[in-house]
């Protein structure tokens, strides 16, 4: 069974929480006792309907302020797949949460209030979806009930959005527009009768037919080594296996591999998953790989294939999203974590800062603070084995850790 990860971004009042609540309701994912708790909570708030958005706004502060302040994870299943929604707030001061929520997503769901059309936040959400190279973009034009389900209004918003896309540096390979009403469930789980001029899929129908090829051979084979398993028991006296995760592409038993940073070569002897011997391992699988020869490989090493091994990078240009209250200090040494590999890295220069709303460089701004996105150059103490994020997203991102506070202060995307 496949898992599909979705990120949602929306403004406070464009009905995002209601949409998620409605999807859960329509897929029978809300148990009766939770439903009753929702009735009671809605009544306490003086509402005359059951507020499904209360399902996702989890923290006390959020309930008090009526806003979403973090990333919440919501789960539901259909008979064919499991869905994970990362629900993130839409304000500019939560840009970092949006980036976080989007980082594992295959689908970005953008909500637009049909009455308001494209607003500042729409640009921001689109920018983040583009920055993260999320392959599927679904634009839900919500609150169609409040514009009398007008086809002209929907078409106008689609047109405006197309204009926005025209200026983008990266376009999702697939963009879908759906007119919906989350309050009334129109075009969510099933097709709307009220919106009869729209002949496309409902939101859930559309999500159900998205497919992925995890063995995608267009991406190079990368395996990150998390640890070396050496049981030293009688039964496994000479066993030396590399436990880790296939980052991208795939590996077969018998493949010639090169280990980085040692650059030593060998062949794959076995690929193991507990007691099962596999012949192949593909992206996202956690396996143990044994090699024909004893070569220098340990935690943080990367196995790849000699014909398309990643370069050993020590000078890196990258887009970063700053995530900490403390600003980036040029010249300061941070810890750079790429996959499971950590190296010291010094920020050489802040090249520019981008206005995420206009997608333009901010003139005269040369500092990165909380929620800022910009381009920097870094120098690392030892090489990392990254691809450019554009070419191979699974091996192109890193985080920066402040060694004083231990906080994760930034996420970076290698140019």
């Amino acid at each position, binding site marked *: *069974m*496949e*898992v599909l990860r979705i990120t949602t971004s929306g403004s406070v009042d464009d009905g995002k929480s209601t949409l998620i609540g409605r999807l859960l309701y*329509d897929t*029978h994912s809300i*148990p*009766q*006792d*939770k439903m009753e*708790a929702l009735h009671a909570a809605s009544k306490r708030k003086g509402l005359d309907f059951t507020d499904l958005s209360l*399902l*996702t706004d*989890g*923290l*006390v*502060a959020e309930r008090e302020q009526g806003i979403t302040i*973090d990333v*919440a*994870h*919501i*789960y539901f*299943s259909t*008979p064919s*797949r*499991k869905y*994970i929604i990362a629900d993130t707030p839409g304000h500019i001061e939560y840009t970092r949460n949006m980036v*976080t929520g989007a*980082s*594992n997503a295959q689908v970005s769901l953008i909500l637009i209030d049909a009455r308001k059309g494209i607003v500042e936040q729409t640009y921001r959400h689109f920018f983040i979806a583009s920055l993260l190279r999320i392959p599927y973009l679904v634009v839900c034009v919500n609150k169609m009930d409040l514009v009398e389900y007008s086809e002209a209004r929907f078409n106008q918003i689609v047109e405006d959005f197309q204009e926005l896309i025209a200026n983008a540096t990266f376009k999702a390979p697939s963009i879908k527009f759906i007119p919906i009403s989350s309050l009334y469930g129109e075009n969510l789980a*099933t097709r709307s009768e009220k919106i009869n001029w729209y002949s496309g899929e409902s939101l*859930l129908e559309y999500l159900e037919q998205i497919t992925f090829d995890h063995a995608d051979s267009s991406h190079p084979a990368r395996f990150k080594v*998390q*640890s070396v*398993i*050496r*049981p030293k*028991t009688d*039964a*496994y006296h000479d066993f030396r*296996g590399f*436990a*880790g*995760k296939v980052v991208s592409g795939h590996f077969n038993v018998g493949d010639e591999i090169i280990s980085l940073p040692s650059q030593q070569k060998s062949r794959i002897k076995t690929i*193991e998953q*507990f007691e099962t011997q596999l012949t192949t391992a593909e992206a*996202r*699988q*956690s396996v143990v790989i044994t090699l024909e020869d004893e070569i220098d490989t340990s*935690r943080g090493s990367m196995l790849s294939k000699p014909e398309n091994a990643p370069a050993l990078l020590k000078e890196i240009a990258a887009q970063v999203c700053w*995530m900490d209250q403390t600003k980036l200090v040029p010249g300061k040494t941070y*810890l750079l*974590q790429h996959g*499971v590999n950590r190296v010291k890295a010094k920020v050489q220069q802040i090249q520019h800062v981008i206005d995420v709303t206009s997608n333009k460089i901010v003139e005269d701004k040369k500092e990165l603070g909380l929620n800022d996105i910009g381009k920097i150059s870094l120098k690392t103490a030892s090489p990392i084995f990254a691809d450019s994020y554009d070419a191979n997203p699974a091996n192109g*991102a*890193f*985080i920066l*850790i402040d*060694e004083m506070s231990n906080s*994760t202060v930034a*996420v970076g995307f290698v140019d």
Partner: protein
Amino acid sequence: MTNKIQWEFPQALEDEAIYILRETAAQFERPAILFSGGKDSITIVRLAQKAFYPGKVPFPLLHVDTGHNFPETIQFRDWLVESLGLDLRVRYVQDSIDQGKAQEETGKYASRNALQTVTLLDAIEELKFDACIGGARRDEEKARAKERIFSVRDEFGQWNAKMQRPELFDMLNGKIQLGENVRVFPISNWTELDVWNYIRRENLQIPSIYFSHEREIIERDGMYWPYSPFLNTTEEETPFRQKVRFRTVGDMTCTAAVISEADKLEDIISEILEAKISERGARIDDKRSEAAMEKRKQAGYF
């Protein structure tokens, strides 16, 4: 759309959990598994077994024993530890009470659930654990929906929802200051159904109280409470025998039973698919207030 039977376990969830467990072993000096004997911690033990095979599970198990456990759970715990050759440490809530660090609750709702936190934090300090792996899932409860995979706690075990580290892609940052510790949640993204489908696929043994059995219960506040010497009852509450099972395993004083004939895994899974009551709906400890879990988490609970 109706819920058809979903037997298939999403393999991506196992891969993710194994990756997290391997990161935990690599990034911390003294990690441990918090083991309750419930299905979620049994799942964690299985995942740890698979993650490091053919090596041994590199984590000891810590059980915080409230003294109010179902005897079936303790029996099962000892069997599992024995059969897999695991290293079990037990710390007792009774000791915390005797030392004056925790105070027994009174009245008919008295439970030792909240007292566990005291014993747990003491054990973490005593055994110098820098990471504790738990089986909590984000789908269980709304405060847990915001929890990170690596969740940093301060010296007092406190969770600060507003100061959480961002977690990007699969990169986990387990760096901490001396005195801090991390709670690790490898099955964050699993649902109750995922856990059951996994138990079925892996053919795992679980404590017998998950299956339908006859036992003495009382009815209180519309829920069925297991009758035991630990439960303070009023005169009107008379125990009666009934075929029940438990959907979660907590203490005998805070876990309600459901009336059920399900005595096979298949039947349990069917029951969950049709269930009218959420999993934690049978947890009396969550019913105390709308924010009960969030408040307990801030204090160091799981």
